[in-house]
């Protein structure tokens, strides 16, 4: 899941207008941002799930540090403290929650490849409900997140512009449309596996 995370962040922005959108978008992608260098360094890895052709939802992702339950909690707290402090305690908590929402959404779609402890230290059973086994259903869930999130964001942006007495609502319409179209593009590219 990529696009769905950003849809959720857009929905949160609609409820929390004081926080810049980029902070919430960064927060929702935080665990994957940290995953990239660990993947390149060989500390975390990706493989194709047995019996599945390469494509959307076909992966087993061994992100044993960034996507472990404890690791995700600690990394979310870290981001909230570092990024959210300047907007106050509520903002910091919200950024933590959005960062951790990544783990929750991944829990739904991932196969059982998410450990509880970093590095799966205790060799406890790994977590994941495996919605990716039904790619069409997973894509529909992502689509719902994108549409709901971008719609909530667009409405909130439009209402904010009206409240501020702006004569033109165009910036709100452009921002809302962009979030929706970017989400649809990313989901399409992900689903069709068009980029490596």
């Amino acid at each position: 899941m990529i696009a769905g995370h950003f849809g959720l962040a857009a929905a949160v922005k609609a409820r929390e207008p004081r926080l810049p959108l980029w902070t919430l978008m960064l927060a929702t992608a935080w665990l994957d941002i940290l995953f990239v260098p660990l993947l390149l360094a060989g500390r975390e890895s990706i493989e194709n799930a047995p019996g599945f052709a390469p494509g959307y939802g076909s992966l087993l992702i061994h992100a044993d540090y960034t996507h472990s339950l404890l690791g995700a909690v600690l990394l979310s707290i870290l981001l909230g403290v570092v990024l959210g402090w300047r907007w106050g305690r509520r903002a910091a908590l919200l950024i933590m929650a959005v960062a951790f929402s990544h783990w929750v959404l991944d829990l739904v779609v991932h196969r059982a490849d998410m450990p509880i402890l970093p590095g799966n230290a205790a060799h406890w059973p790994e977590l994941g409900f495996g919605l990716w086994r039904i790619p069409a259903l997973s894509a529909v869930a992502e689509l719902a997140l994108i549409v709901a999130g971008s719609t909530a964001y667009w409405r909130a942006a439009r209402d904010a512009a009206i409240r501020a007495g702006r004569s033109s609502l165009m910036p709100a319409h452009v921002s809302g449309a962009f979030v929706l179209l970017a989400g649809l593009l990313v989901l399409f590219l992900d689903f069709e596996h068009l980029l490596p």
Partner: protein
Amino acid sequence: MTFILALILFVLVAGVLDARIPWVSDGKREQER
């Protein structure tokens, strides 16, 4: 690559577009100061 593209689109471009929205009205901003 899809993830990197998504980061660029959502964090950078959407972030810039969002900054043009008057989320906090000028009066309220003055109050907060």
